[in-house]
């Protein structure tokens, strides 16, 4: 038997609302299968499971708001027999709620319940595991139990009509971005480096590749840039991963968070998975799909929680360069400005050539400016050899 808990789908998420179960007890699930849809402040996310098994018990009802770390369901290992009736069900096992201690924490800690609340809950027949605590340290208090025992208590919150769901979503997203970015600037000692990269070779190569292709089949420079970032990351792994619990965790694959602005405002940077190992054409298709699904509000949980670095490209907006704010717990962000023609000295001759200003914002707890500079130089060199990407 194992627990399926609500994952943190980004540093700015501490709770979510279960919209729909995609499975029911008895269903066999495979690793990577979407089992539930959870509404976060940013989008309705398809939540995947990361272990094969058979659904045993669903513990959360659609419509409930739940903190990250809450056990949503219990599953049996493949081949495991269900426990006999009457044995302690998962609902009775302690430790179903994590009061959103640290973002990204997924291990369920023992639920805090005051002794008085526990006794009252027993008397009233209230399932304390389903309660969110309002006491110190998120503890469930007498008042929480008594509120839950009111007839129709759990429904009342849902029957309140929501006047402007879209406006609420925007406000929520703003709040979430504010929390994540404030945390970033508060905790991460950023350092910034910029490098102007000649883009003539890359542009020429791209034009050749795209020649004769239909518009829908053409590669964009953005894909080339993402691939180049992945190639450079392979040499400088300290830019790729997470800083958690006071130490850096390097991640072998480059799951690049692509910053995508939303029409109604705000942005999401979902992961384009394992950019380094995929051919450009596949990346192009996946990027187009990712952008489309992001704007439609339909992302998968792994796309929300996996990014190991973020790339932001504000070239389309016409700015020359961008100095990014790292999205915790990531440790670096690469920014590209507009590709523009600049006077350039090449082999002692002044020429006019297309260039782009690439910037690196990196976490000084993990890397130093020297390595950051080498990383940017590697990125520059990768973009001079587009045919190798």
């Amino acid at each position, binding site marked *: 038997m194992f627990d399926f808990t609500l994952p943190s789908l980004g540093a700015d998420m501490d709770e979510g609302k279960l919209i729909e179960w995609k499975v029911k007890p008895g269903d066999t699930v495979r690793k990577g299968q979407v089992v539930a849809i959870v509404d976060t402040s940013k989008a309705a996310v398809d939540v995947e499971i990361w272990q094969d098994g058979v659904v045993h018990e669903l513990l959360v009802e659609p419509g409930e708001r739940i903190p990250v770390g809450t056990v949503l369901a219990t599953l049996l290992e493949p081949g495991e027999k269900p426990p006999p009736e009457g044995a302690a069900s998962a609902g009775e096992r302690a430790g179903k709620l994590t009061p959103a201690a640290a973002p990204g924490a997924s291990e369920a800690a023992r639920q805090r319940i005051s002794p*008085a609340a526990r006794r009252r809950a027993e008397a009233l027949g209230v399932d304390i595991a389903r309660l969110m605590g309002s*006491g110190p340290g998120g503890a469930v*208090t007498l008042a929480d139990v008594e509120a839950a025992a009111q007839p129709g208590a759990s429904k009342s919150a849902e029957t309140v009509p929501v006047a402007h769901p879209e406006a609420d979503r925007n406000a929520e997203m703003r709040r979430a971005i504010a929390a994540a970015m404030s945390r970033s600037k508060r905790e991460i000692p950023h350092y910034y480096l910029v490098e102007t990269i000649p883009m003539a070779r890359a542009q020429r190569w791209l034009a050749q590749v795209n020649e004769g292709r239909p518009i829908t089949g053409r590669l964009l420079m953005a894909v080339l840039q993402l691939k180049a970032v992945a190639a450079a990351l392979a040499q400088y792994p300290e830019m790729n991963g997470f800083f958690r619990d006071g130490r850096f965790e390097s991640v072998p694959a480059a799951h690049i968070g692509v910053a995508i602005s939303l029409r109604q405002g705000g942005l999401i940077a979902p992961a384009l998975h394992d950019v380094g190992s995929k051919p450009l054409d596949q990346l192009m298709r996946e990027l187009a799909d990712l952008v489309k699904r992001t704007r439609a509000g339909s992302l998968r949980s792994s796309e929300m929680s996996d990014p190991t670095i973020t790339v932001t490209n504000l070239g389309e907006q016409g700015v020359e360069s961008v100095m990014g704010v790292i999205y915790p717990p990531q440790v670096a962000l690469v920014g590209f400005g507009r590709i523009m023609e600049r006077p350039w000295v090449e082999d002692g001759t002044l020429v006019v050539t297309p260039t782009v200003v690439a910037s690196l914002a990196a976490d000084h707890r993990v890397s130093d400016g020297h390595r950051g500079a080498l990383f940017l130089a590697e990125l520059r060199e990768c973009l001079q050899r587009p045919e190798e990407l």
Partner: protein
Amino acid sequence: MRVSYREAMRQALHDALVSDPRVFLMGEDVGRYGGTYAVSKGFYDEFGPERIRDTPLSELGFVGAGIGAALGGMRPIVEVMTVNFSLLALDQIVNSAALLRHMSGGQVSVPLVIRMATGAGRQLAAQHSHSLENWYAHIPGIRVLAPATIADARGMLAPALADPDPVVIFEHAQLYNTEDELRDEPNEDWRCDIERAAIRRPGSRLTVITYGGSLPKALEAADELARDGIDVEVLDLRVLRPLDTETIAESVSRTHRAVIVDEGWRSGSLAAEVMARIVERCFYDLDAPPVRVCSEEVPIPYAKHMEDAALPQAAKIVAAVREVLNV
């Protein structure tokens, strides 16, 4: 009639001296000087040097003399200038006064009252400012009182003198100038019980438990919280030994939360004892962990701002209450 704590204590002593010829007052500067805190002002002239006895600066000696007088049938009231100096007399109080009934197999008792000032807040520096009530509250064989109101200052001495065993009365130095109305009917009997704690302010959401000089601070905090709609109960222990566990448990079982305010240091404090009893008696009624507001664990500083910072204050009590209620 509006009187000060000092005046209430003076009247209580005066009554005792007038009503019982066995009563006499003894201590440093209680006679010609009128008492360090002016509680016995005028007594020397009124009752004479036989009954208002100035002593040398020798706590061990004059507390011992008081014990001897009590054994001999007198009803001595011994004043020790502050609890800080009473440590010199600990042997007499702990090894003699508290134990003689036991050691003599019940043949003798020690009907002695020891009064001492305690507490900080008057810029008297570390050697005059500590709160060591818990040292005495630890000892079986003595009763320990902490009058915090004018009525208790007026009414606790008589039953203390009537007690056949030693009674230690702690008068917080910052209380002497506090004033309140005191009942004053003809033939008024001011005597009060020296058994029970008292609810000084009823409330529903949390019990603030305190005693002595911290009571006015707790009441001030309760007033401030009430302005924000937070209704807390304030319980005055009054009797530090034996503790009135029943009243504490009744209150906390009703409010489900407790903040304990004690001017003593946290480690090994009376507050720790109260908290332990709450957990023993009320565990299943608690809706949040109890919290203590005690003095910082430093010698009480001389400088005003540092002394203020080291002591429990109304603002600290308010903050502790808010922490427990998570509001």
